[in-house]
C-alpha cells in the first residue's frame, strides 16, 4: 500500500493565518433544500458530538445522535473542571491567536500539525461567544465582563471558567442547542446505545451497528456519513480520571474496519489526582490543576521521613518543582509535573500510607490571602477532597499523585477531520489531531467545541457535496454481515462461562499498563508488557465469566470493552516501543537529557505514527511527516 498517498493530510495552501478562511471560502456547499436528504450518524454527545449534532441539524441535515448514557447531558465532558482556553486577550496581557497556537504546539512537544493547531487557536474566540450567547454562566468580574484565570502553565490569563464545573456548563450549553434541534425534529436521540461496528458500503462509511443497552438487541442505522465523537481511552489503564463507561470500543472497531490509529502511545498522566487508597477503587478523582496556582508541591528532603507534614520544618522540605523549574515553578506542564512526582517517589521521598504521593500545600497561600479567598477559589474542590479522604486540606496539606487522564492519540484524521475511511469523521478526544504528544490544560474543551461547532459543519458539507451516494439500506449485505459478526462475538463472550469477571481482567491489564506503558517507559518494560498483555488476553477468552444474558447487563457491556482494551493496549505498547525518543507524555528512559528532561529525536521521529490494522498479521506502520514552516522545534524549557 502506498503509505504516503494514503496519509495525505490535505492541508490547504496559503499562509498559516489564511489557510482556514481561504479554504472555507472555496468549499463546495450542499444546496439548502438538499440538506434534509442527508442523514448523518453522530456517535457521542459530549462537547464534540453534542455541538456537532446540534450545528449540523441547524444547517438542515437529518441527524441521528447516539450515546451510552441515559441522556446526552451525562457524557463524560460534564466532568471537566478547570476551564476552556481562548485567545480573546480580554486581560490585555499579550495573548493572541499566534501565542495560543505557539503555546499549544510547544506544549505538544512539536508533534502536532501547525495548520490544525492554528485553526484551533483562531476558532477559540468564536467558542466563547457562542457559549455566552447560549447562556453559559461563565465567571465574571464585578464590572460585568468575563473573568479569566491562568491555567496549566500558561503565562497569560486566557482560561474561561464556570466555578469548578466548566465542562458541565459547556456541555449543558451544547445539550441545550441539541435539545432545541430535537424539538425541531431534525435530531433523533438514541441514548443507551453502544456502537459496536462501522458499516462500510462501496468504500464509504454508511452505517453503524449498535447494541441497545436496555433490550440487548442489535440495531442497524444507515446514513450518508458517520461522525465519531466517542472520547478518549484512558480507561485502558483501568484506574483513571475518566468516567467508568468511557471506552475505546467505537474507535477500535473502526480501526479494525480500516481507519488508521495515530500515536496510540501518547497518553497524558495528570499530576494532581487523589492517590489510590484501596484495591476496591473504581476510579481516581482529579483535583483541578488550578490548585497549582496557589498550592506548593513538596516532599521531605529525607527519605523515610515519617513525621506529619506540619512537624517538618521549611528547610527540610524540598519544593522540587520550584527548585528545578524556577521560571514556571508549580505551574510546569502536566507531563513534567507528573514525571517529577514519580521520580521523587521512586527515590523514596513520597509521602502517605503507600509512599506514592506528594504534598500540595496551601498553608502559605492561606497565610498570604486568608482562608476566605482560598475558600472562594477552591471551596468545592477542598470539600470534595475531604469527602473522599477524610482529611481537611485547610489544615493538612493535600496528598496528590499522577493518574491517567487524557489520550492525545486517537484515530488519524486529515485537516477535514476525516479518517482514512471516506465518510468517517472523527472529532474531539477520539481523534489525534491537535495536541501532539502532550495536551495543555483547558484545551480539550476548546478542541471538542471547535471541532463540533465550527469545523465539522463545513468539512462534512464539503465531503457530502463532492460524493455520489448509492442507495443503501439496513438490509444491505454489509449490514447483515457485520451484525452477524457482532452477534457471534457477543455469544462467544457469554458462552465462555469461566471463573473471572471482566473487572478482574481490567484491573490486571491496568496494572501492566501503569507499570510499563505509563509515565515512563523502557524497551525492556514495553516488551514485557506486550508479553503480559498477550497472556491476559489469551486467558480472557478462556476464563471470562459474565453473569446473565444479553439484556440490560453491565457486565456484558464491560466485557466487550475490556476485550477491546486488551487489543488496544498491545498497540499502545508497540507504538511506544518503536518511538525511540521521548516527547511530551511519551517518556522513554533511554532518551533523556543529562538533567532528566525528554530528549526528542526530530531527525527520525518528527512524524505521526499511524497504524493500519492487518488482521492476524502485525499492524502496519505509516508515517505522516510533520512539517514546520512557521515555528522552529526547540527543546521545551520551563526552567
Amino acid at each position: 500500500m502506498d503509505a504516503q498517498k494514503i496519509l495525505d493530510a490535505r492541508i490547504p495552501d496559503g499562509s498559516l493565518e489564511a489557510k482556514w478562511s481561504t479554504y472555507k471560502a472555496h468549499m463546495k456547499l450542499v444546496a439548502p433544500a438538499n440538506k434534509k436528504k442527508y442523514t448523518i450518524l453522530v456517535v457521542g454527545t459530549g462537547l464534540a458530538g453534542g455541538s456537532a449534532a446540534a450545528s449540523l441539524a441547524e444547517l438542515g441535515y437529518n441527524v441521528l445522535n447516539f450515546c451510552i448514557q441515559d441522556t446526552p447531558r451525562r457524557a463524560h465532558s460534564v466532568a471537566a473542571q478547570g476551564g476552556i482556553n481562548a485567545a480573546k486577550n480580554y486581560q490585555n496581557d499579550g495573548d493572541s491567536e499566534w501565542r495560543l497556537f505557539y503555546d499549544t504546539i510547544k506544549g505538544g512537544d512539536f508533534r502536532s500539525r501547525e495548520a490544525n493547531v492554528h485553526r484551533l487557536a483562531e476558532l477559540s474566540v468564536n467558542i466563547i461567544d457562542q457559549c455566552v450567547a447560549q447562556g453559559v454562566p461563565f465567571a465574571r468580574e464585578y464590572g460585568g465582563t468575563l473573568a479569566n484565570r491562568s491555567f496549566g502553565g500558561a503565562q497569560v490569563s486566557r482560561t474561561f471558567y464556570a466555578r469548578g464545573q466548566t465542562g458541565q456548563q459547556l456541555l449543558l450549553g451544547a445539550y441545550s442547542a441539541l435539545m432545541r434541534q430535537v424539538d425541531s425534529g431534525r435530531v433523533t436521540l438514541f441514548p443507551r446505545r453502544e456502537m459496536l461496528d462501522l458499516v462500510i458500503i462501496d468504500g464509504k462509511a454508511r452505517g453503524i451497528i449498535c447494541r441497545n443497552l436496555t433490550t440487548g438487541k442489535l440495531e442497524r442505522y444507515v446514513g450518508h456519513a458517520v461522525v465519531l465523537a466517542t472520547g478518549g481511552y484512558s480507561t485502558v489503564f483501568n484506574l483513571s480520571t475518566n468516567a467508568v463507561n468511557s471506552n475505546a470500543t467505537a474507535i477500535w472497531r473502526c480501526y479494525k474496519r480500516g481507519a488508521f490509529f495515530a500515536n496510540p502511545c501518547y497518553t497524558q498522566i495528570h499530576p494532581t489526582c487523589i492517590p489510590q487508597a484501596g484495591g476496591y477503587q473504581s476510579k481516581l478523582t482529579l483535583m483541578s490543576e488550578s490548585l497549582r496556582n496557589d498550592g506548593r508541591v513538596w516532599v521531605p528532603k529525607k527519605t523515610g521521613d515519617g513525621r506529619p507534614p506540619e512537624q517538618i520544618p521549611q528547610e527540610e522540605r524540598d519544593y522540587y518543582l520550584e527548585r528545578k523549574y524556577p521560571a514556571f515553578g508549580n505551574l510546569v506542564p502536566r507531563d513534567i509535573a507528573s514525571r517529577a512526582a514519580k521520580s521523587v517517589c521512586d527515590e523514596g521521598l513520597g509521602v502517605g500510607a503507600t509512599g506514592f504521593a506528594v504534598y500540595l500545600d496551601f498553608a502559605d497561600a492561606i497565610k498570604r490571602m486568608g482562608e476566605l479567598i482560598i475558600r472562594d477559589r477552591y471551596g468545592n474542590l477542598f470539600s470534595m477532597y475531604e469527602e473522599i479522604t477524610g482529611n481537611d486540606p485547610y489544615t493538612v496539606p493535600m496528598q496528590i499523585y499522577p493518574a491517567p487522564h487524557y489520550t492525545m492519540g486517537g484515530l488519524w484524521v486529515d485537516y477535514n477531520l476525516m479518517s482514512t475511511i471516506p465518510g468517517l469523521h472523527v472529532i474531539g478526544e477520539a481523534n489525534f489531531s491537535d495536541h501532539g504528544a502532550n495536551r495543555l490544560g483547558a484545551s480539550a474543551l476548546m478542541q471538542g467545541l471547535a471541532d463540533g461547532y465550527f469545523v465539522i459543519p463545513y468539512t462534512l458539507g464539503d465531503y457530502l457535496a463532492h460524493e455520489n451516494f448509492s442507495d443503501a439500506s439496513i438490509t444491505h449485505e454489509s449490514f447483515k454481515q457485520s451484525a452477524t459478526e457482532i452477534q457471534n462475538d457477543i455469544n462467544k463472550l457469554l458462552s465462555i462461562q469461566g471463573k473471572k469477571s471482566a473487572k478482574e481482567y481490567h484491573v490486571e491489564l491496568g496494572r501492566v499498563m501503569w507499570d510499563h506503558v505509563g509515565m515512563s517507559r523502557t524497551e525492556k518494560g514495553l516488551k514485557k508488557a506486550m508479553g503480559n498483555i498477550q497472556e491476559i488476553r489469551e486467558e480472557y477468552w478462556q476464563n471470562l465469566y459474565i453473569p446473565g444474558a444479553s439484556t440490560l447487563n453491565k457486565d456484558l457491556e464491560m466485557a466487550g470493552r475490556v476485550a477491546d482494551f486488551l487489543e488496544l493496549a498491545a498497540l499502545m505498547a508497540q507504538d511506544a516501543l518503536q518511538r525511540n525518543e521521548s516527547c511530551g507524555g511519551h517518556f522513554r528512559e533511554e532518551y533523556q537529557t543529562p538533567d532528566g528532561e525528554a530528549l526528542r529525536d526530530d531527525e527520525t521521529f518528527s512524524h505521526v505514527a499511524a497504524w493500519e490494522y492487518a488482521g492476524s498479521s502485525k499492524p502496519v506502520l505509516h508515517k505522516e511527516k510533520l512539517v514546520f514552516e512557521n515555528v522552529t522545534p526547540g527543546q521545551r524549557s520551563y526552567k
Partner: protein
Amino acid sequence: MITMKTMTINLNVWRQENSDAPGKMVPYTVEDVSPDMSFLEMLDHLNESLMKKGETPIEFDSDCREGICGACGLVIAGIAHGPKRACTSCELRMRQFRDGDTITVEPFRAKAFPVIKDLVVDRSAFDRIMEKGGYISVHTGSAPDANTMPISKEVAEKAMDAATCIGCGACVAACPNASASLFTSAKIAQYVYLPQGAPERKRRALSMVQQMDVEGFGYCSNHGECEAVCPKEISIKNIALMRREYVKAALDAGCFQP
C-alpha cells in the same frame, strides 16, 4: 490513608427483572466494607461476590463517580442519595455508616420514571421537558462578541447556582407528589436571571411547565423535600420564581385557567 478496619453491612435491595416484572426487596450481607469506599464501590464489591456465587449482580446506573454527571441515583436508607446532605450516591462514603448497619436501597420511584431493571430507571422525561424550551435559540456562528453584554457578577452567580443542576431526579424521587418542579424551575431560573434568556422567557415557561404535566409528574405543594435531597443544593425559591413566570406568561397568552 488506608483505613484498615472493615465493616459488615446488611442491605435490603430492590430487585426487579424488567419493567413488567414485579419487584421485591432482597437481603444481602456485604463483608469487608472499607469505610473509604463509596456507596457504589460497596455495591461493586457486593456484585463481584454475587458473581462468584453464580448470582445475578444488581444493576444500577453510574458514570462519572464524582457527583457531576447525575447518572447515579439510589434511595439509600429511605432518602434520595442517602443521609448525607449535598451529596450524590456515588460520592457518599461508607464511613457514614456503622459496622452492622442495615440499609435499604431502592430506585428513584415516580410514575414518570419507570423502572427498567433493579435500580435503573428511565428518566428520559427530563429530556423531553428540556426539549420544550430548556435552551436559548441561537444558531452556531451567530453570536456577538462575548463581552458585548456585561452581566454583573451577582447575576452570573445566581444563574450559575441554578445551572448547576445535574438532572439526577432526586427531587422527583423525594417529592410526595413526584413533582419535577425543582428540576424544571432551575433551568427556567437560569434563563430568567440572564439577559440572553429574555426574548423567549414566556414561551419557555409555558411549554416547559406544560410538558411536566404531560409526562405525568405531580404538582408541587411546597413540601420542600426536593431541596433537602438535592445534591447541588438548588433552592426551592426557583419554584416560586417559576410559578410567577408561568402565571404571567399564561395571563399574557390568555390561556390562564383559574
